[in-house]
């Protein structure tokens, strides 16, 4: 290999190493995925506390369809979930998110997003 080539290759690997180091410094802690199960017309658990950026996955293990609807209109709304269907939502902002089942509104739960 020519000296110029070696210098270029070295420069490339140096900047790559530098970029990787920067990236590992800047990367946030790995976002978590939390599951809320739906069984017997109940959200289990009914209340969950997560960090901003975490994902909540609702999984319907009941033998009847349910849906997930945010109490504040427009924040999140799932299709009807039959048995074994899932719905997930990433909670970027802090806050308390009440939700209920669109078919059976007496079923309620909440996601608390706190740093």
């Amino acid at each position: 290999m020519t000296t110029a080539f070696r210098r270029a290759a070295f420069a490339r690997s140096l900047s790559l190493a530098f970029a990787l180091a920067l990236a590992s410094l800047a990367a946030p802690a790995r976002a978590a995925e939390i599951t809320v199960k739906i069984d017997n017309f109940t959200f289990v658990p009914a209340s969950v506390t997560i960090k901003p950026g975490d994902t909540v996955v609702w999984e319907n293990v009941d033998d009847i369809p349910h849906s997930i609807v945010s109490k504040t209109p427009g924040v999140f709304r799932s299709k009807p979930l039959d048995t074994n269907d899932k719905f997930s939502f990433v909670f970027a902002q802090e806050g308390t998110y009440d939700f209920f089942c669109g078919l059976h509104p007496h079923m309620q739960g909440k996601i608390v997003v706190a740093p």
Partner: protein
Amino acid sequence: MANGQDDSGVSRRGALECMAWAGTGLLWTVAGGVPKVNQILGVASANAQAATGFTFAQISDSHLGFDKPANPNTNATLEEAIAKVVAAKDKPAFMIHTGDISHLSKPGQFDDADKIIGASRLDVHYVPGEHDVIDEDNGKAYMDRYGKNAKGKGWYAFDHQGVHFIGLVNVFDLKAGGMGNLGPEQLAWLADDLKGKSASTPIVVFAHIPLWTVYADWGWGTDDGVKALDLLKGFGSVTVLNGHIHQIFQKVEGNVAFHTARSTAFPQGAPGQAPSAGPILVPADKLRSVLGVASITVTQGTHALAITDAPLA
């Protein structure tokens, strides 16, 4: 019953006794607020035929598309229910379906229902259940099929031989923590519909979720149902037919008789007697004894409508 929120007028023991009696085909009439056993089905029907009047059928909660252990074949049990309706001694003039026709609002499920129910060759008046309005367009699938002559989200009225029938829709705009919901637009329509009707006009109101509170913990009631019932005060004969709870509940309050029908698909637990409001698994040979249809007979000159529940087997 454990639920202290509502005095249903019938104790749990009384309700179970009523259910057992209804299952054997005894004919009840209600007069002056007191249910009376008339006589065994068959003899009473002969009397009803002799007087002027008519009979109509109520089926409910067919849930076509449900295929879990509680009933792996809801199409078959609906077929049996229709056969039973058609074979009744008192031929029904038409049928009412109090909702949850389908399980997931899918076109194939509605198609199957239309085919199976169509075999009865009866006029059928539908109201939607919450399972019928979960298509992507939030109820358009139901309205396109069944809401041709309806207002708003599917409510309407019609008359038959002097009896005024009102189909109400209480499965839209449900609020967190709430129960069924009629909404102000529908209530305004109802008030207008009833205006000018004489107090002696028999009224039959049908809707999916019970209009009175059967069990609030499971959402078995309608938040603004009382407003509808207030509009019906003053009529001498009011019959309220509902579904949703997949079991028979009856009560009488003054001039109003309430009746919820069995499902043709699967049973649900008695209030507070099961972990949830969901399907109850019974032994396969018992399933048809907890599914059923209802026959309602109007006899001219009497205030009370005779409601008879019959199990599939």
